[in-house]
């Protein structure tokens, strides 16, 4: 009997403690703000800038989460070594949103909002962003979603932005550029993953773009998770298309290509991959099979800037592989935040929180020109502008970029 009472007590206590701790999290994190009134009106009130990053750190996307966080930490180390932001050191807290776990994403976002953030990094990943962006939107906190998706972030403007440009224009133009280079391609089959809204939307744009230049889209084949993709490959071939456009997850893209190659598609120039390709698994699975294929991307792997060379070298050292488009995203975000805070003289004082949040939002939605690690970018009325490239794959690397973009110096 006593044992039972004990167990019940423990359970009830745990519950109470968890409630109290959750309720208390507000106070805990506000510790970053100094209690005393600021000396000068625009001096920072904090002894440390804490940025919250909502990131998929578990589940299938965990490896990419790790890479993005790695990039962010590199930036933080560099910034802190150079004296921090406005003389105050920087720290980031990562909140795991899981892969395809809306309930977790929402609760973590709520946790972040309780810390009264000036702005939020993330949510990354379109499922997370779809689930939890509404919360920050309601609170009026700016979200640097960086990798989620153009179409999701667009729905939460002006309180969200993403480092993926207007995919409608890019999907159209890059596809047309491909046809321009390979004029004998008159008909294509598209492989599309229907669960992912962004990829689905982009594939629609690309399809429209191709149709506009007289290319026939024979079928949009739905790709779902499967053990073996050869049935899809055979199905595509039954249309006898000239080209193949891939809008699905990297593993499926490569596996479908391998099946097509086995079945007699000899020329890799007939393949066009969308910008979601180019991940480590894409290269690992496709090693040696992809030479000559095309991929469009907004990632400038050929960037010559010193910053990028340094970052890329460090990445090769740490990860034993070529850097991909996820690597510089939050590295860049961090530097943009630094510039924003310095330009606006953000203080982080409690009493100015609302006003500073709005100031940050206004600033972030109109950035005239800013040097990202890989390129020079621009944000006009909340719309991120950067070039897009059509690459040829050569030696398991993206080579020979053709600029299909606009608004680029």
């Amino acid at each position, binding site marked *: 009997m006593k044992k039972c009472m004990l167990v019940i007590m423990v359970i009830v206590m745990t519950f109470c403690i968890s*409630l109290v701790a959750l309720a208390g999290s507000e106070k805990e994190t506000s510790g970053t703000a100094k209690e005393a009134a600021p000396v000068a009106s625009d001096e920072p009130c904090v002894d440390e800038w804490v940025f919250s990053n909502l990131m998929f750190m578990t589940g299938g996307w965990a490896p990419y989460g790790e890479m993005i966080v790695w990039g962010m930490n590199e930036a933080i180390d560099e910034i802190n070594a150079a004296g921090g932001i406005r003389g105050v050191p920087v720290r980031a807290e990562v909140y795991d949103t899981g892969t395809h776990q*809306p309930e977790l994403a929402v609760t973590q976002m709520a946790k972040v909002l309780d810390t009264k953030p000036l702005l939020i990094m993330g949510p990354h990943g379109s499922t997370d962003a*779809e689930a939890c962006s509404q*919360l920050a939107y309601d609170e009026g906190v700016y979200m640097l979603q960086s990798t989620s998706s153009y179409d999701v972030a667009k729905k939460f403007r002006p309180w969200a932005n993403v480092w993926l440009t207007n995919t409608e224009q890019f999907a159209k133009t890059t596809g047309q550029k491909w046809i321009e280079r390979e004029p004998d391609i008159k008909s294509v089959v598209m492989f599309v993953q229907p669960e992912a809204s962004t990829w689905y939307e982009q594939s629609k744009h690309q399809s429209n773009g191709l149709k506009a230049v007289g290319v026939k889209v024979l079928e949009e084949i739905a790709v779902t998770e499967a053990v073996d993709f050869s049935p899809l490959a055979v199905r595509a071939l039954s249309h006898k298309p000239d080209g193949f456009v891939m809008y699905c997850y990297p593993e499926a893209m490569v596996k479908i290509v391998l099946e097509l190659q086995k079945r007699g598609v000899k020329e890799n120039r007939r393949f066009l991959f969308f910008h979601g390709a180019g991940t480590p698994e894409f290269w690992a699975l496709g090693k040696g099979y992809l030479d000559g294929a095309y991929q469009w991307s907004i990632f400038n792997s050929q960037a010559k800037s010193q910053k990028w060379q340094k970052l890329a070298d460090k990445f090769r050292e740490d990860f034993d592989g070529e850097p991909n488009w996820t690597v510089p995203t939050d590295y860049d975000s961090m530097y943009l935040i630094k510039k924003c805070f310095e330009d606006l003289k953000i203080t982080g004082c409690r009493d100015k929180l609302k006003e500073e949040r709005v100031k940050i939002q206004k600033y972030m939605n109109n950035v005239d020109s800013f040097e990202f690690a890989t390129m020079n970018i621009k944000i006009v009325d909340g719309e991120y502008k950067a070039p897009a490239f059509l690459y040829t794959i050569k030696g398991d690397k993206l080579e020979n970029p053709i600029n299909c973009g606009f608004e680029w110096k």
Partner: protein
Amino acid sequence: MPISLFYFLVFTGIFILLGWAIYIVYRNGQLNNVPIAAMAVGAYICAYLTRELHWPFLPALLAAMGGGAVFSFVPALGLGRAPGFSMTIATIAMIFITQTVLRNMAFLGGVYGFYSIPRVDHLLIVTYVIVFIVGFFIFRLERSRIGRAMEVVFIDTSVARTLKINTYWLSVWLQVFAGVLGAIAGVLFANLVRILVPRHFSLGMLLNIYCFMFVGGYTTMWGVVVFTPILWGFPLLLPEAVAEWKDTIYGLLLVVTMLLRPEGVISKKMLWDIKVSVKRFFINRRKS
């Protein structure tokens, strides 16, 4: 009230409802996944009615419950006799089918999702009023004739048949009830998150709820109630470096609980012991 506490508590309520939905069918010896699919149905019905047709919350809730009931009734007719595991796999089909259908419904947002759903006032109170009502209903149900029938079926199906319990219709009605619970959970989810995307209603959520139920105890309705907040809450409190391992922790908890306490932490016997000791405590006090 901190925002995170609000979301944590409402989600806890939603998970308790879902846990009960799975629990109530499992009392009949079958593991049913329909509540997740019914959740999607309920969420979308409520969302559409409140956003597009400007219905108030209560009628929308009732409509969603009706939708959930109809939705789960049809497969239940076929699955009434299915052995436990067969039902698990068969009802996974319901999740895939629901997702696919929703993706192809343009007026519900399709792949892109259904955005900006209005939220009912005092959602937290509404949630817990619903949880309380449902809980009371299940409490009464378990002490009714049906509840005793469920008990017999859970222990031995063949004995149940000799006692002239119609296991088929029992299973059907429990599945419909589970579907209604799922739909209610969906309505709360829609009101809480205010964005619905077909992908949200997937198997992942289910695994968590299995974990809450089996660790908490599947022989009483209280296992879910006690362990949902604990298991759902603790990863949110842990430092991020540890919380990242929450899946592994859940897995370990499942294995360890099943091996050491096969009925889950809270078993019928434990409740009985508590009841006795509480009674004794009061009696002793009166004496002294």
